[in-house]
């Protein structure tokens, strides 16, 4: 059959890949914050599995590990929040300074 192919490369994309390709680029600090958050959530999502795996090794070892992972996630979130806030402050300072220079007489 002749006609215009809508997918000439023949590749199939998942919905997630399409969403990622159209997402706006992030600034360095935002990207850093997102990576840190993803690492934290990834660690946490593994926690129940770890708990189950190591549960039989000792009475509270699974619980202790989960507790430690949650504490770690909270710490990472706090750091992420700090970087994000500092980044916002820096940007607003820069924007205000440039605005003042433009209006300088």
């Amino acid at each position: 059959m002749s006609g215009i192919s809508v997918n000439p490369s023949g590749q199939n994309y998942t919905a997630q890949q399409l969403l990622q390709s159209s997402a706006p680029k992030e600034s360095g600090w935002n990207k850093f914050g997102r990576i840190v958050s993803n690492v934290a959530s990834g660690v946490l999502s593994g926690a129940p599995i770890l708990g189950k795996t190591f549960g039989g090794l000792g009475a509270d070892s699974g619980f202790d590990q989960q507790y430690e992972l949650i504490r770690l996630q909270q710490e990472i979130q706090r750091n992420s929040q700090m970087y994000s806030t500092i980044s916002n402050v820096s940007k607003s300072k820069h924007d205000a300074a440039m605005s003042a220079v433009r209006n300088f007489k």
Partner: protein
Amino acid sequence: MMTLDDSHPSGDAIRPEMPFDFSVEEKRFLIEAALLMRDCKRLDEAETMFSALLPWVEDQHLPRIGLGTISFDRGDFDEAIEHFESATKDASNSALAYAHLGEALAFGGHREEADLALEKATQLDPAGESGGNMAKTVKRFLESGLL
């Protein structure tokens, strides 16, 4: 012999006799260059530039803010507060000066005065582009308890 950086420590800048004057565009360029020097952490050079600019500009609040941010970067919050207070006297309607003053006061441990200065900056620039946004973000930073 008088040089460009013959500004008095008290802030009374002495304008050297020169056979030319700077245009407004040139002054803007020099201020922006000094800000870049500061952001590159070449603080001594930036300080020299801001100090040298003082006698050449009628409205001195912007170079004074620049000098204050250099002191702030060096961790000398008391000196930064002096510069920013001087800037608020030069331009009492400058939200940028009050926002920087609030930030320096907060880091210097004067939280109540910092809140007042940041509030004043927000009132002076409700739209946010000339210092109001900076005051708001600094305020949020302080409220988060990260300091």
